[in-house]
């Protein structure tokens, strides 16, 4: 979620009142943003993805002003008629289908304003517009453009001068050489490319990559042309509305643009009915229609009491987060103040119970603890070297790996626990022996029959490291384990490269192998940097549990 540094002076100017830092620090977190800090000049705040309208000073001040009780209800925006028109060619459907435009006039633009405009545009691109995929915004100097505009497609050899460029470049060059082109080329990876052209065939924009140089906004610009294109119509319209509201709050006048017969912006509020008893039931409050209306107005929504039980709510065009009446209930809760909710104990009577696996694991752990074994807890994520190579094993074909681990030391899921305990021994050679350790937990391996193609089982492993540790002492542990769980575990000669030949056995339960026991091979001990004998065992607990609870 993005953190934005808002110009404090601007925010207070838009609120129209000086608010102390103390009040700001108290109120800002309670409106549904995460305050990071306030300095003399800046309010640093994390805006959650549900409120992209608060990414700029104008929108932030709009929300805060209502929340502070300094403004009530839906803010009105007038859209002026105009003759501005644009057309969309059908060829854009397969590259970047949706395009809208609007004109804003009469702005007082200085360099600070341009900076802020670029910041909000960028933040909207990265969050709400999913890195320009769903939508991309272009801001242009209206007075450099001749109408009607045309949103069409061109081939890779089409040339124009990109923003901040001096020379003409072909689209192909832009996509392979220009930093913006390289960053977003994957979004227009087709044989034709979307462009906005003006009436004189000058390039306004090559969305979502870069604008044309001749429409650049400068400190002399008074009037803006906004274009938004994208692959998701809803996101395109929301992005336009957020920009329009921002620029209108900054003093601009909105003029509609006719794009292939539809006039933009569409800033008509969405209507939603709210059942007051629904809100009260969810919140545990007993608000009447009047207070519900008041709270909704505080949140910058329009609200009208239809009856004692129903309120009609007008949702402004820049609020992207209201999908369901429950979202209105949240706005009421925020206006009411999360800090004002009293906690309440529910009288729903239910009976608690632990899972069978939890009970079983606890019993098994207690048994091992009684035998002076220390429980270890390690990560489920590990690597093939730990699991196999250091244990003298070939890497299993059933090893489950992650596709994208940041940390390559932990790029695979453990399919056994014994090797993890060996790693722990290797990290504890400075501590006193004997060291008797165990770990019980989940192990993971490929299994095409499961929903995820991966199966998860529970194992337990134990090691005993010390001068007197040997096969017999570990066998005694397994026998105590079997005796106390009332299962018959048999031992059968076995060869396993992790263990000394002739000092290793399979553990058998009802004719099926459920584990292995042995004295670790000197080569394995050397691999782990150990200079004491180690006896170890690993048991598939899931199978033992099945036998115990059958």
């Amino acid at each position, binding site marked *: 979620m993005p953190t934005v540094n808002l110009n404090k002076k601007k925010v207070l100017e838009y609120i129209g009142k000086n608010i102390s830092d103390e009040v700001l620090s108290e109120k800002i977190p309670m409106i549904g943003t*995460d305050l990071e800090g306030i300095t003399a000049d800046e309010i640093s705040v994390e805006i959650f993805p549900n409120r992209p309208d608060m990414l700029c000073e104008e929108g932030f001040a709009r929300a805060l002003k209502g929340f502070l009780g300094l403004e009530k209800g839906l803010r009105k925006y007038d859209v002026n008629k105009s003759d501005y028109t644009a057309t969309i060619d059908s060829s854009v459907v397969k590259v970047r289908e949706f395009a809208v435009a609007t004109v804003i006039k009469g702005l007082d633009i200085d360099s600070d304003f341009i900076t802020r405009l670029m910041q909000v545009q960028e933040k909207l691109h990265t969050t709400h517009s999913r890195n320009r995929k769903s939508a991309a915004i272009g801001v242009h100097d209206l007075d450099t453009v001749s109408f009607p505009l045309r949103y069409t497609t061109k081939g890779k050899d089409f040339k124009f001068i990109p923003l901040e460029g001096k020379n003409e470049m072909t689209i192909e060059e832009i996509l392979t050489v220009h930093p913006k082109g390289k960053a977003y080329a994957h979004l227009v990876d087709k044989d034709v490319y979307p462009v906005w052209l003006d009436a004189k065939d000058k390039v306004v924009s090559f969305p979502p990559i870069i604008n044309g140089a001749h429409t650049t906004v400068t400190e002399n610009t008074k009037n803006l042309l906004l274009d938004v294109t994208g692959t998701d119509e809803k996101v395109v319209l929301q992005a336009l509305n957020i920009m329009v509201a921002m620029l209108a709050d900054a003093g601009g006048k909105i003029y509609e643009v006719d794009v292939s017969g539809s006039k933009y912006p569409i800033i008509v509020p969405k209507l939603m009915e709210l059942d007051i008893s629904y809100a009260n*039931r969810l919140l545990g409050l007993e608000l009447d229609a009047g207070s519900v209306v008041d709270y909704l107005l505080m949140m910058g929504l329009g609200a009208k009491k239809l009856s004692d039980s129903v309120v009609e709510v007008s949702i402004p065009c820049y609020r992207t987060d209201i*999908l369901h009446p429950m979202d209105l209930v949240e706005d009421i809760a925020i206006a009411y103040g999360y800090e004002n909710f009293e906690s*309440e104990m529910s009288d729903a009577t239910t009976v608690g119970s632990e899972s069978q696996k939890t009970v079983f694991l606890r019993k098994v752990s207690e048994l091992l603890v009684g035998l002076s074994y220390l429980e270890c807890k390690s990560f489920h994520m590990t690597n093939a070297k730990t699991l196999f190579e250091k244990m003298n094993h070939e890497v299993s074909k059933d090893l489950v790996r992650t596709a994208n681990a940041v940390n390559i030391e932990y790029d695979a899921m453990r399919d056994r626990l014994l090797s993890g305990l060996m790693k722990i021994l290797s990290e504890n050679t400075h501590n*006193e022996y004997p060291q008797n350790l165990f770990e019980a937990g989940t192990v993971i391996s490929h299994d095409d029959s499961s*929903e995820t193609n991966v199966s998860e089982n529970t194992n337990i492993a134990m090691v005993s490291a010390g001068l007197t540790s040997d096969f017999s002492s570990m066998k005694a542990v397994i026998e105590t384990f079997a005796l106390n769980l009332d299962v018959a575990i048999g031992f059968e000669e076995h060869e396993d490269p992790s263990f000394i030949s002739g000092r290793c056995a399979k553990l058998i339960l009802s004719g099926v192998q459920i584990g292995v026991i042995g004295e670790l091979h000197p080569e394995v001990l050397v691999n782990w940097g150990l200079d004491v004998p180690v006896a170890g065992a690993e048991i598939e607990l899931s199978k033992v549990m099945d036998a115990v609870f059958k």
Partner: protein
Amino acid sequence: MAESEKKTYNLQYHEVILLKKLSEMKQSTVIALDKILGIDQAAVVRAAMTLAQLGLLTIDESDKMVVALTRDGKTVIDKGLPEKQLIHAVIKDKVMILSMIDIKDRNIALGWAKKQGLVELEKSDNDMAVKVTSKGLDFYKVKSDIELALENIVNNKPVDKGMIETLKKRRLITAEFKTVRTLSMTKDGEKIAKSVKLVKEVSKVTPELLKDGKWKEVKFRKYNVVAPVAPIYPGKKHFVSQSLEYVRRIWLEMGFKEMEGNLIATSFWNFDALFVPQNHPAREMQDTFYVDVKEGRLSDKKVVAGVKKVHETGDEESCGWEYDWKDDEAKTVVLRTHTTVLSAQTIANIKESDLPVKYFAIGKCFRNESLDWKHLFEFYQMEGIVVDKNANFKQLLGYLKEFYKKMGYTAVRIRPAYFPYTEMSCEVEVFHPRKKEWVELGGAGIFRPEVVKPLLGIDVPVLAWGQGLERILSEYYKITDIRNLYKNDVSKLRSTKLWMW
């Protein structure tokens, strides 16, 4: 005197034998007594100090010249001075050829003998012959001053200063200043020494002592109860397990059933069923671990159809996310990023007639982050849901407050937050009494109808929370580097304090 008669002294074996011996000698030194009593010096000192504390003897410490015979000095007592041994060899054994005289340190002996004019050397063939002078014969007949002085030292008789220097020069004695502890009896000591009985002391209770009743006659040697002993190490549950068991108990006490399920899930359960849109940033590679397997299966067709519809077009009340929901994206396989997967799966398996129900889970979750002192890529989350037609936001706060109160945090507050699957969404914070600041512990809220309806079939409020546990555990165990929770340092596992709730 009357005082000491009334007193009973619980004297140990060493103390008794020391007292009795000193009573015979009246006065002695620690150095002398160790040989006499046959116990080591440290034991004599310990016994003497105990007796001195009881007023039975006095210890006088002074620095004294302590003279002791060297090995050579002891040889002189036995065999005479080297020059005397030389003369002895010549006279008694009739050996005159120098190279044939077989005594220790022959050349030193010859040096001293010549120096005092006791012998003369004469050339004889290729060798030298030794001839004893008349002075030498006189010398041989009587004990020399040196020999007498050494005997005096052995017998604790005084020796004059000049002679001490001579003896030192000839390396027959060592002489140095040492602290000498002189022990003298007191009158109380004399009395006790007469009355005290020597009881046999044993070190162990043995089966024999018990069987034949001898334990009644013996005294058990006193131990130094403050002396260090060799450490022993317990078998123990990992300290994180101990705390998790407590967390589990809190929810059990509040009537919650435990949920369990897999660490690895399809994106469908981890995201889609929780109304997380398919283009949500949380689903991107930098946050979520994707598993390198072929695509998973979406087995519950009815639930999948419901989830698809609510994402694409919503329902009577919700407008949904309004986009094309794709199977392929839902079939990717991930390490669960939250235990909320379990809540979704559980809700899909209950019926309206089961309500109200309360469930909890404690389990590992995964986030694709690099490992550092503040971040783990694998961590525990505690999950809870209350599915109840009468559930409300105030009760959510009630459950969380009750839980944190049992974890030792009395001040709990909530702030608005955002999660795609809850509404009201809140961030839960507790007030840290020591740091005097609010600490964020996790998210909570009421599941959106878009989550609940496709899974359960009806819209019922579901209170839900997923709280991180490592932060409060680190705090309890005073661990600043979060990685140390799972470092498995054997000495820490052995010594970390128990979870005391």
